[in-house]
């Protein structure tokens, strides 16, 4: 149905300052679910709004189906968008909200009505068709916003944090429903969120943004397992990847005086390991990290062990009932295949040879 291509897209707002979006390039393939993920203010919404045609593009090329879209007004782009605020028309019934976009394109009232009722039935809104938005619950409003996009059968669906105003339980079920919807429609979708769980569970690919720039693009597993830089490593995961300052001497990485990995680099590096890739061990010599148990956080399914190693704290994902005792020394083994190294100055990932552990 549609391929969306962004080439070196830049956005400067009139208010000046640093660009809100800085040289962003990626392609969303036909039928792909692309998630834009990043902390608040990193330019996700701005990027999405440029695709929608709601913000002008300062420079760069935006194409939908290989047609340049930079100068095409929003109304002619044949896209649909779900807003965080839902943006339902308050003076219209649910029926009219759903049909508003269709009426603009199709004059056949009967067909519009039929399509609206069909979509309303598919997302469970039939009983509410004649209500005004103010008489709906938050979840129902969200559905109307979703339905308004589906009804149009657009080339591209855009979502700007559509779940963030829902309560936790509803968010989980709606998440699953959106995934199902994507599969059924096999439509091209771009989904903005700051919630990494949404990104990991929904996205075919995730584009992680930082300060208006693309930090990394890849499948959820790729970006989780092989972060391109320290920002992505520290942003993804809950708790995120442990990052510790270390040094490299051209042959090996030294962490707290121990050789922990072989690498060709030299100078200051960041040693990264995810909490689930550390395991407590009794063998102090096999350990990569040693410290003192600073606190234990039982989460039910697992327990997070905070290990104080003097200049930094490391978090370990332990079993439900860990053997570690508070304030006692602890030694940690790292899964050698899971060690990641980053340049301390630039934050860029450093490639490791296959067998990293010495």
């Amino acid at each position, binding site marked *: 149905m549609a391929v969306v291509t962004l080439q070196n897209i830049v956005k400067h707002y*009139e208010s000046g300052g640093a660009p809100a979006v800085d040289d962003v390039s990626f392609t969303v393939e036909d039928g792909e679910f692309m998630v834009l993920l990043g902390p608040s203010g990193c330019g996700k919404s701005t990027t999405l*709004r440029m695709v*929608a*045609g*709601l913000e002008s593009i300062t420079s760069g090329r935006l194409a939908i189906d290989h047609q340049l879209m930079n100068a095409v*007004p*929003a*109304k*002619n*782009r044949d*896209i*649909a*968008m779900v*807003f965080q*605020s*839902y*943006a*339902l*028309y*308050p*003076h219209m019934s649910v029926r009219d909200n759903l049909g*508003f*976009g269709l009426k*603009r*394109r199709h004059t056949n009232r009967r067909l519009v009505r039929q399509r609206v009722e069909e979509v309303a039935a598919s997302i469970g809104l039939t009983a509410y068709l004649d209500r005004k*938005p*103010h008489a709906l619950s938050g979840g129902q409003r969200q559905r109307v916003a979703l339905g*308004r996009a589906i009804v*149009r059968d657009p080339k591209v669906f855009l979502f700007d944090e559509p779940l963030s105003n829902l309560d936790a339980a509803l968010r989980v079920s709606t998440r699953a429903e959106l995934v199902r919807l994507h599969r059924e429609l096999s439509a091209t979708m771009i989904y903005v969120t700051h919630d990494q769980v949404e990104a990991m569970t929904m996205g075919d690919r995730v584009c992680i943004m930082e300060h208006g720039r693309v930090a990394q693009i890849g499948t959820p597993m790729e970006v989780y397992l092989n972060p391109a830089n320290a920002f992505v490593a520290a942003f993804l995961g809950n708790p995120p990847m442990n990052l510790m300052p270390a040094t490299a001497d051209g042959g090996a990485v030294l962490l707290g005086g121990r050789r922990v990995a072989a690498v060709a680099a030299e100078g200051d590096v960041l040693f990264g390991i995810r909490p689930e890739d550390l395991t407590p061990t009794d063998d102090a010599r096999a350990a990569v990290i040693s410290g003192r148990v600073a606190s234990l956080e039982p989460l039910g399914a697992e327990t997070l062990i905070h290990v104080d190693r003097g200049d930094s704290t490391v978090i370990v994902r332990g079993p439900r009932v860990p053997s570690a005792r508070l304030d006692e020394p602890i030694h940690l083994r790292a899964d050698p295949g899971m060690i990641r190294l980053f340049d301390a100055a630039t934050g860029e990932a450093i490639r490791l040879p296959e067998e990293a552990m010495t």
Partner: protein
Amino acid sequence: MAFASDRTAVASRPRISTAALRSAALILFIALYTAFAAGPFVWVASMSLRTTTEINADHYAFPWPMHFEKFAVAWTESNYDTYFFNSAAVVLAAVAILTVVGGMAAHCFARYRFPLKGVVYFLIFSTIIFPPQVTVIGLFQLMVDYGLYNSRIGLVLVYVAIQLPITIYILEAFFARIPGDLFDAARIDGYSEWAIFWKISLPVALPAISTTIILNTILLWNEFLYAVVLITDDDKRTLPLGVLRFMGDQLEDVGMIATGLMIAIVPVVLIYVFFSERLIQGMTAGAVK
């Protein structure tokens, strides 16, 4: 426990009487104010049913017998039917133009950034700082020059001009509170800026729109100064000028003036009675849901 409750009982007794005193004072004030505001109206209403001879004999007597025929006389013999039609036509036209033009201007001020926006805004609002007595002479000359003097169309244009700033002001404040996402959603739904104004801005802002309609209708229906300066022909006069008919050089027909005033006032009172709730709603309307 008992001790504590005793104490509160003792403490609360004087408080109750203070509250009663307060509400009594309030009721007294409201009663006085109502008498102050409604008194003249009641007086004119009573005079409208009495002849000038009766009024001269006793200004405040109860209107008995009631001369309802005076209304018929004013309407059929003193040209009040024409005045009424003129007022209705002029006010309707002016309010219609004000609502559409004011609405569009307010929409632009609230929604768009454009060059010289501040200057345009200032120019529109600078007109309200001059009292009409200052501008009316120049306006008179202007209207004569453009052949709009002594014309109802000219009066409509003047009415639009004097009420436009306040109309824009009220509507802009309301339009600015309509969430921008609504307009973005309509754009994405395929609508032009023009269509968005008619299908989103105006209907969503209906409380504010009706406020300005009622406000402008009442103000312009009663407008006297510009009308008396700009209209001379008797058959182009609006209702507030109807009193001139009963004002001779020597003699004022007070009884008929009162009757004419009542004819002029009643529509306004009716509008207010039926729409006051909406008016207050519009003025105090909260954010759009």
